[in-house]
């Protein structure tokens, strides 16, 4: 089977032990986390009574991703174990300046790193690359920085542990970190390195990965097409991997002032690098759950596979009622008993809008972007 095929098959079901694990995990969660026990009691939900089949999973009252935000100040109340058992607080890269703060053990961190590695491998296979053009910072350097502390525990960027799994390379010196982080200033891309690198890789027929957030890869594509004006033919040895969002043109401190069209992005990547369209993948995920949803382009848009470790419920944006109809837009809720041993994210409702792709047993998603956080302001005063 070619590495790209699995992601297009579409309907890998949840793992066989999912329900048993989910029952056990939710019963444990209610015992470990008084905040969750309170919310579930108020909603009349009892996991040992109400959770028999996968269809029951939508009955679990979810924790909202907003509840993990720094501003909500609940992240300590959403821990499942005493503070002494927490190793690190991971923070999201927050475009709004209000990151999610999640207490994790080393094992949880390993679990999410593995989940992302699996997601990436779904798209480009497990073999290491000969050359990687990384539009992400060197994770070891990033983790070595002092990011501060919460309750005496170190803070680490969630993404740093993901970067560690990205672009496994045969020879570490053949991974070029093209992104230069400059403290207090916008990041810089080292454009010069990529042209020579692509020439060499093409000449030697190397297995190549070009990866980063959509905005950075888009900037590389624009540079190569408008400034360099050249094309390469990497063929089936070439892969483009994007992730972490930003299709709306905003990510972290970056703001393009407009969105990036996914189909134009793919067409440009295929044109400039000379690779098959199915070698361009996007990855959906968020720091609160630590799961990765690999996305393949299927002619319309990326379609994101729900990993076997998760069940996704979509909810009406207004009423929050769950629904099954494909193509209807709803808020994404991810249910998974895995990788959440320290925080209450077994059932997590995030503020992204998505729909199920038809004929995939509701195991693939289209992502439509963030639900608007606030509608137009009025003349009522805001005190903060």
């Amino acid at each position, binding site marked *: 089977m070619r590495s790209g095929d699995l992601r297009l098959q579409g309907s890998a079901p949840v793992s066989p032990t999912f329900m048993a694990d989910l029952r056990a995990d939710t019963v444990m969660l209610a015992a470990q986390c008084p*905040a969750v026990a*309170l*919310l579930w009691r*108020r909603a009349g939900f009892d996991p040992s009574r109400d959770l028999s089949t996968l269809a029951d999973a939508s009955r679990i009252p979810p924790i909202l991703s*907003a509840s993990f935000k720094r501003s909500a100040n609940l992240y300590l109340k959403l821990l499942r174990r005493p503070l002494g058992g927490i190793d690190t607080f991971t923070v999201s890269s927050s475009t709004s300046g209000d990151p999610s703060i999640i207490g994790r053990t080393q094992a949880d961190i390993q679990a999410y790193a593995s989940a992302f590695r699996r997601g990436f491998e779904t798209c480009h296979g497990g073999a290491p690359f000969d050359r990687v053009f990384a539009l992400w910072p060197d994770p070891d350097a990033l983790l070595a920085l002092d990011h501060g502390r919460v309750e005496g525990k170190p803070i680490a960027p969630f993404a740093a542990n993901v970067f560690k799994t990205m672009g496994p390379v045969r020879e570490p010196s053949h991974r070029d970190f093209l992104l230069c982080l400059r403290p207090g200033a916008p990041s810089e891309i080292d454009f010069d390195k990529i042209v020579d690198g692509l020439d060499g890789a093409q000449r030697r027929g190397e297995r190549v990965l070009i990866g980063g957030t959509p905005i950075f890869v888009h900037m590389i594509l624009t540079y190569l097409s408008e400034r360099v004006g050249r094309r390469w033919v990497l063929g089936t040895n070439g892969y483009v991997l994007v992730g972490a969002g930003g299709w709306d043109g905003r990510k972290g401190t970056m703001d393009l002032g407009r969105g990036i069209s996914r189909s134009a992005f793919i067409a440009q990547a295929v044109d400039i690098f000379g690779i098959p369209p199915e070698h361009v993948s996007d990855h959906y995920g968020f720091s609160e759950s630590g799961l990765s949803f690999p996305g393949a382009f299927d002619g319309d848009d990326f379609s994101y596979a729900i990993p076997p470790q998760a069940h996704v419920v979509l909810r009406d944006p*207004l009423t929050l009622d769950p629904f099954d109809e494909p193509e209807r837009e709803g808020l994404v809720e991810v249910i998974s008993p895995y990788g959440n041993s320290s925080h209450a994210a077994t059932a997590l409702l995030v503020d992204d809008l998505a729909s199920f792709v038809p004929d995939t047993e509701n195991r693939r998603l289209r992502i439509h972007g963030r*639900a608007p956080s606030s509608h137009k*302001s009025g003349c*009522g*005063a805001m005190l903060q």
Partner: protein
Amino acid sequence: MSGQPIAIHRAPVVSADDALAHVARLRAGLAAARKRPVARTMEILHEASVRLADRQARAPLADHLAYVIHHGTDLIQEEMEIIAALLTKSSLRDSVRAELGEYHGLDDWDRVGQILLRRQAHGILLHNLAGNALIVSPHSLALGLLTKHVNLVKASSDEPWFAASFAALLYEIEPELRNELIVCSWPGEDKAIYDAIIPEIDAVLHWGGEESRRSIAHLAAEYDVSLISHGPKLSFGILQTVLSADLHFVAKNLARDIVLWEQRACASPRFIAVLPGAGVGADDIAQALALALACAEQRWAAGASDRGRGARQAARRQRYMIELELDGLGRVLEAGRASTVIHTRVFPPAHAIDDALDRLIWVVELPSAGELLRCLDAMGSNISRLFQVAVHHGVDDSILDAIAARGMARMEHPGRSSQPAPGASHDGFHDLALLTTLHTRSAAAIHAPSDRRET
């Protein structure tokens, strides 16, 4: 013309040059504006009010606005009723009488005691509109027209429709107004336009954001242009001694105050302070309010086009359930799907009051009126300039004078927060007085002493 749908117009986005050209055209219209009797302006506005009160005629506009500002159509319809009532001849006449007195001097010299009194418009008035409380546009325009200004209107970029549609309705009724009233729009952060036009105009009536107020205030001071500023405001309720017989009536009226404008208007209550008294307890009040809000939802459903509403509401409910209920500090009541009542004994901090939007209300049980005043004082030294409306129900009125001393402009009965009676203070002032300058001359003829001897 009745029954004809009200046409939907959008305020065009203009450049500084366009805006200056509009100012020049308006200046030419000033003589006609000054000549038009106030009674005629009232007739024009009354006719517009009749059109707005026609449910069928306003239906397409209401549907359109519902989509734009994410209010449910039924709620927009209710809001239109309020606007129509504001613009009737009797309401306008009462407002002029209450704000300027029986002899207003807008049309001619009026004799008041020993003097003749005349009021004059400043001239060219810029209306800087903002926000999604629809009432602001027709209210602001009516103030400008009644005081015989020519009016350049900057509609909000978020909602550039209603002011433009209302102006077009007025042109239908009185075509001359095309030279006296121009609605357009530009991004509020575009300082260059303000730089260009403020030296050329005579007064600014500003509504909404603090940021635009500051940039306008600087220019207005520099060019000596009158600035009447209605910045963002904070309103709340005070209940003392609610008798059980009155409970549901009071709750129903409070629910209406909360739901109107999706609680984003300056007059929308954000918390209800419950003071001790002989009536029902805060718990019963919170329950009754939750029930009333759930009923209000049946009548005025939340707008379906607001895709973020469910998640925002759920996040707020979840946050305050965990924050308050775990420690026994309060209780979150889910009032239907769309509304939330939070009953607590802890006065809500600033971020929690900011969260009181989209039908979320704090019911705060306090041990005494003194404690309420202490909490209000603790909100910050500048807070009094934000206080707009207090809806009050109770037998003891002494608290009202104490909050008036703290800057509260208007005290209302529950259900009336968005429908001030003519003459009610807006935020400490009467706009019609502020929008005019007052001129007097002595009434009695001066007689020489010899004249007096002869009589």
